[in-house]
């Protein structure tokens, strides 16, 4: 597995290309889901992550049995962790074949890859993630947990409880803040007393770092790898902040009264996928023709998943009652 020496001293060609491929798949899925949400046939709506596909990078460096908790803007997590397109699309179409049997919407779930859904009320997942890290620590098989939060939910109290506990117990967890500067409509300079969220790391006796150019996929991947390896060695938690830019509204239907068209256009000029693509081409890892290949493969994958979802049945009314309790096996 040759290192891509011109790009990174710690990441392999295979890892970099996998990140690139999954960023493309995430973007194409997102573009289709935006269309569906705006045509009104998607009950949970869609929280677009266009512009923030860099989040694929840290997830793709995880083991299959590592745990990840995510927010409503989660498509990059689901794709990079290996959840099938059809499970995602069928769930958003609220079909019984969806990953959460049509009951979860944005609560995509796949336990076999360490994804157990999400906490609907923003910021409730800080302790849930720490709890998964407790299980990883107790089991002692080298698993870690990764937790994604935005500048939005980072204002909530459970952050303090979870980060403090995780540091006391040196839990194997990597906290990653995706700071796009917007808590829905609230700008982070109106919601936070500090400028860089990584500053709170010291309060929890853990290392912290901010990647100011969140479009630099290699820099983000390398920083994440350092903290992942550290957690896996049993050295405890760390906090990585990535400054990103959200291209679309908080969700489809958001009138975006809180920012100007000029501001949005300026932010969209830096496309993390295009920037990464250019570097991969310069390093000889991507050739012209490869880009079309990846994009048309993703198009086909999304189209096939949509056909599957459209043909799938709606949940039956009696299904509302069958999944509340697990069967006890003792």
């Amino acid at each position, binding site marked *: 597995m040759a290192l891509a020496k011109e790009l990174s001293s710690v990441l392999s060609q295979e890892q970099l290309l996998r990140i690139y491929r999954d960023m493309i798949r995430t973007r194409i899925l997102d573009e289709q889901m935006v269309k569906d949400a705006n045509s009104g046939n998607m009950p949970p709506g869609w929280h677009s992550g266009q512009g923030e596909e860099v989040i694929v990078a840290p997830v793709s460096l995880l083991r299959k049995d590592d*745990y990840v*908790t995510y927010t409503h803007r989660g498509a990059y997590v689901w794709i990079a962790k290996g959840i099938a397109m059809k499970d995602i699309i069928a769930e958003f179409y609220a079909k019984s074949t*969806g*990953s*959460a*049997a*049509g*009951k*979860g919407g944005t*609560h995509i*779930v796949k*336990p076999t890859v360490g994804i*157990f*859904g999400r*906490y*609907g*009320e923003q910021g*409730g*997942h*800080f*302790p*849930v*993630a*720490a*709890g*998964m890290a*407790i*299980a*990883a620590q*107790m*089991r002692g098989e080298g698993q870690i947990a990764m937790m994604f939060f935005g500048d939005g939910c980072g204002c909530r*109290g*459970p952050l303090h*409880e*979870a980060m*403090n*506990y995780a540091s*006391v*117990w040196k839990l194997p967890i990597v906290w990653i803040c995706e700071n796009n500067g917007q808590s829905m409509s609230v700008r982070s300079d109106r919601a936070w007393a500090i400028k860089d969220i990584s500053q709170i790391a010291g309060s929890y006796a853990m290392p912290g770092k901010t990647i100011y150019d969140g479009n630099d996929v290699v820099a983000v991947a390398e920083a994440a790898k350092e903290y992942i390896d550290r957690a896996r060695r049993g050295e405890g938690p760390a906090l990585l902040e990535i400054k990103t830019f959200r291209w679309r509204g908080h969700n489809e239907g958001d009138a975006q009264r809180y920012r100007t068209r000029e501001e949005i256009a300026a932010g969209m000029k830096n496309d993390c996928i295009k920037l990464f693509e250019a570097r991969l081409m310069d390093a000889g890892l991507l050739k012209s023709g490869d880009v079309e290949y990846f994009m048309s493969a993703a198009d086909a994958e999304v189209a096939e998943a949509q056909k599957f979802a459209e043909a799938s049945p709606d949940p039956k009314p009696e299904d509302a009652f*069958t*999944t*509340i*309790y*697990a*069967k*006890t*096996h*003792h």
Partner: protein
Amino acid sequence: MPEIPFYRAIQDALAEEMRRDKRVYYTGEAVQPDSSSIYRATEDMWKEFGRNRIRETGIQEAMLAAGSAGAAMAGMHPVVDFMAVDFMSAAMDEVLVAGLWRSGQGGAEGFSIPVTYMAAINTYGGGGYSHARSQIGYFWHGPGLKMALPTTPADAKGLLKTAIRDDNPVVFLFHRRFLTERGQVPEGEYLVPFGKATVRREGKDATIVGVSGCVPMALDAAADLEKEGVSVEVIDPRTLEPLDTETIFNSVAKTGRLITADDDYIRCGVGAEIAFQVQERLFKQLKAPVQRVGNLNTPIPVAKSLMAAVMPTKDKIIAAVKRTLA
């Protein structure tokens, strides 16, 4: 059969389950042997299981509630001690969401959240509105949470063992008055299934369904009423979810009179729910309207005189029974 205090029955259940299943661990503020809690882990448990499985925390209820749910999703069986139900309610959303989570995430076979949330109710007599609540109805109201409320040491042991083995979130509440009371507890493996009420006293004129702290009160009321020639049946549901409606319905079908008695606020409370289910099934057999005894709709006071005015008492239960006979 040995006679042991309620708190000892809890400790025994914990130690046995932790020994039986490595995934079980005990967590909370007061779990270590040097804590102030009466049902803290014993020195022997600490020697056997250590810090890894007796996980003391600071005051962090959201972490206790949702962190334990996360650990449970990832395969562990945490037992969480909140000490007082008032403190558990600092993480009310987290506890309620633990009940909603499985189904909201599709509830596939294999997905489970085997967590037990423990707390005392009416925890600090004289502790007032934030240290003496019961809040039973709040947890019973939402889907997905099982609820066990033992009133004897034997039931404490048997229900806690069942709760720990159950692959679902269980809210396990007990009145603080019970903790030092002694009772016979079978030795060895002793499990009490959920959904099986006990008839604590047989009678034919009226049925009292008592919950938690009101069960002994109802038994005292029944003893007094017997002297006046009134024969009262006392039922202890032991679990509210699942609820053994069959035993309750059979009793009220026999007596025709129902009185509910529990420590929670009466509005939207435990008694209200039981009363509705009974009248829905047995309206024609009822000889009188259902009566409920509980905490009046006011924050729990501190002074003994005020508490007597506001909270359930034996005399209020007796008066309620007599109203059904009038």
